């Protein structure tokens, strides 16, 4: 029998942990540091690629994703050295997708051509908003004009361009968002990630909210209305929601992110990166050291990972459900139960069908539009308990 990860494919995630400034809502592993020795980092990342490849020999690599932090701050040479290492480690799929996350600023846009030359064929631009006042509130360094210019360059250079937007912002009404999203759709990109602003513990926004500040964030009902409006407008414009927050023209889905959601295997390298790797038929979770220098020294000494853990049947089924039900296509019932027979308890399935929160067809289940908005509840019901 084929190993389970094959149903989702295999990808490589590379984390670049540096940014020019820390955004107040961001809880990613990102650090503001001057004078990064890119040569040294390139060597360490390349070495890590080689190390992980030892345990996954002979696999076909379908995608590479440079995430961050701000990977568009990587010098094209740095990107190239990591890609070289990946090239030597695995067999590349013919249509391999190589994405770079980028901030839409002129500095970075100036390097796009060289990044493309190094092999990047897709960018994901963190536009975040099309209103200057809101970009300021979000603590971003760019304005709308600069973002539009960066988008133009990107479309010129890369065959595939995606952009991120954060909505459900302070004081954002339905009509505000409708206008802003329409302008965004009008750009005619092939892929959009539309995230509702989330307050994450440990961020400046979180602290402000705890202290009673950050007023005007939408209540549950408005947030749900904003979400529903987003689905309608994207659908109407031909950007199908293939995941909770991701919309694409047909065929333009992020192949790399689909590896996560279809619960494939991925190698995670760079500070704080997580991976899922099947070795000797058993799935493992890997996690690298988060602090950049700590990671760098560990990587140079042989391995940047701080943790390697065998996943239990419950873990795997839980992760498959949590990731897979984010997708419009849903999950395969037999696969979930094959991972752990306590997954998808019959009674809960029936209840959720009754409530109209999920559908079931052709051996798959997925969420209805209403169920998607309640995904956490749905998954909590369906994952194996202890």
């Amino acid at each position: 029998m084929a190993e389970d990860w094959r149903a989702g494919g295999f990808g490589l995630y590379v984390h670049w942990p540096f940014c020019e400034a820390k955004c107040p809502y961001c809880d990613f592993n990102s650090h503001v540091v001057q004078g990064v020795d890119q040569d040294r980092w390139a060597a360490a990342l390349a070495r890590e690629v080689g190390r992980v490849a030892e345990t996954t020999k002979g696999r076909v690599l379908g995608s590479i994703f440079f995430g961050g932090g701000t990977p568009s701050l990587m010098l094209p040479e740095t990107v190239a050295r990591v890609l070289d290492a990946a090239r030597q480690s695995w067999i590349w799929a013919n249509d391999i997708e190589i994405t770079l996350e980028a901030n839409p600023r002129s500095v970075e846009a100036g390097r796009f051509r060289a990044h493309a030359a190094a092999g990047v064929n897709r960018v994901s631009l963190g536009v975040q908003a099309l209103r200057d006042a809101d970009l300021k509130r979000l603590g971003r360094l760019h304005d709308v004009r600069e973002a539009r210019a960066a988008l133009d360059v990107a479309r010129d250079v890369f065959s595939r361009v995606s952009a991120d937007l954060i909505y459900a912002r302070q004081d954002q009404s339905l009509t505000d968002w409708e206008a802003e999203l329409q302008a965004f759709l009008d750009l005619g990109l092939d892929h959009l990630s539309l995230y509702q602003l989330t307050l994450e513990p440990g961020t400046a926004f979180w602290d402000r909210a705890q202290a009673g500040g950050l007023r005007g964030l939408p209540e549950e009902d408005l947030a749900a209305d904003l979400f529903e409006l987003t689905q309608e407008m994207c659908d109407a414009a031909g950007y199908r929601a293939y995941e909770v927050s991701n919309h694409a023209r047909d065929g333009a889905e992020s192949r790399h992110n689909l590896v996560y959601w279809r619960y494939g295997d991925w190698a995670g390298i760079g500070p704080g990166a997580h991976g899922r790797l099947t070795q000797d038929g058993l799935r493992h979770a890997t996690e690298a050291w988060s602090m950049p220098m700590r990671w760098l020294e560990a990587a140079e000494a042989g391995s940047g990972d701080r943790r390697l853990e065998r996943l239990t049947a419950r873990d795997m089924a839980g992760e498959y459900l949590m990731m897979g039900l984010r997708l419009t296509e849903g999950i395969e019932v037999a696969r979930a139960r094959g991972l752990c027979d306590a997954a998808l308890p019959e009674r809960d399935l029936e209840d959720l069908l009754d409530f109209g929160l999920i559908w079931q067809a052709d051996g798959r289940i997925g969420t209805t539009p209403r169920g998607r908005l309640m995904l956490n509840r749905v998954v909590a019901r369906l994952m194996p308990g202890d």
Partner: protein
Amino acid sequence: MTTPLSHIRNFSIVAHIDHGKSTLADRLIQSTHTVADRDMKNQLLDAMDIERERGITIKANTVRIDYVAQDGEHYVLNLIDTPGHVDFAYEVSRSMRAVEGSLLVVDATQGVEAQTLANVYTAIEADHEIVPVLNKIDLPAAEPERVAEQIEDVIGIDASDACLISAKTGVGIPDVLEAIVKRLPPPHSGDPDAPLKAMLVDSWYDSYLGVVVLIRVMDGVLKKGDNIRMMQTGAKYGVDKLGVFRPAMQDVKELGPGEIGFFTGSIKQVRDTRVGDTITHEKKGATTPLPGFKPSIPVVFCGLFPVDSAEFEDLRDAIEKLALNDASFSFEMETSAALGFGFRCGFLGLLHLEVIRDRIEREYDIDLITTAPSVVYHVYMKDGEMRELHNPADMPDPSKIDHIEEPRIKATILVPDEFLGDVLKLCQDRRGLQLDLTYAGSRAMAVYDLPLNEVVFDFYDRLKSVTKGYASFDYQMEGYREDNLVKMQVLVNDEPVDALSTMVHRDRAETRGRAMCEKLKDLIPRQMFKIPIQAAIGGKVIARETLSALRKDVTAKCYGGDATRKKKLLEKQKAGKKKMRQFGKVDIPQEAFISALKMDG
């Protein structure tokens, strides 16, 4: 060596709540050097945590005092400090049965209050000599002459030689001691050579000694090592330890007629020690028992459930021990779909309920859920049978019911004129029927026939608030009367929630129902679908709220790096569900019930 009867004085100290009984007891103990000065503290006898915290007496306490009187003779005084709150009236009447006289303490700044009256009647019923004591004369607001007159007018006992004292400063205490010796009678009779007859006055559980039994010897002599028998229950024990309270336990070799003391005897069975029972020797014992006590009748019932269902057995243990300590508290097992296993418990009133609940929570460290208090209804069936209903959840099929009667009380309220209007309105609102209204000086005395059900909820609190604390209140059970009473059910998602069923008067059902539905709507977290919350009487909905469905609970971003952490959050969410009680498809957190049942609403 037992004390001759002529040199024994047994008495209780009775008064309205807070008039200074325990403080007077302090002074009597102190001025006779029963307790060393360094061991003295205020309200020494109020030893329980709740007593000290609330500043009230809950359990009656006995102390033996040695006093050399002005006549040069040595007397043994046994005093019983009693509680003042109406809920503990039974404790007072029981204590009075063990003694021959009472010190009636009246706060000279307050005058006669409802329990002053109630206590006097009980004392007269027990054939007591009464010595009035006017307390708190150190306060500028004290009006001893006026209060003495009031005692004569309202109560009808002679107050011309009342003792004027300040229990706080000690003024007048020597007079009180002399009055005890001179004006209170010695024990009426008592033959040391007759077969033993001792009254079981009280018993409680002590974690070191086991069950401790408080007795008053009437005839005969009880010695350490004797084998005794309880005449009612037939239980037999050897006396391991015999002693008196000073107020610490002090061993004695024997207790003779007229004396009050305690014994222990490896008593295991809680039900073996029944207050009012007669204790005699196993061999050559008495043949006729003492009259015994009127049993106390619990009037307020509620369910007590452990928050953590694993603590059910601990709760059983705690309740059994407390029941021993408190003859007027009853219990039986109960199960509820909402709350699991617990006990249906009977109390003498709401304060009594609160005290027991507090003690279980503190002394036994068990978190409790208390269901809405209910009184005992008499349900008359069409076939002529009468059923006692302690729990609204057990209400029989209404079509088989002929009529329902509810307990009524006779309430006596003393209140300054200026608040009388508010008090009358309150009684009216609570379906009260006025029986009498008289005046004594600037105070009115209103006597009402009220449904007990309307009083157990928050009557006392309301009375305090409308009269700024100036009213006093006493009641006694009057019997049962028919009224238009119905069981109100609460349905969540069309499923009845037994723990929330209550009996209400038909005219008030809508208001109560609406309030309950609104409260629940706020308390139950929104679920994946909308939920109707209804109050209903026999299938007819009288109030309704709809809890709208939760619309959004989704994580915006989840990629490969988040999997581990986000899955943990979902697992927590799933585990949280286990703490919920399931009603059909609805999960209701236990806290929601706890809050819905909080008595403040």
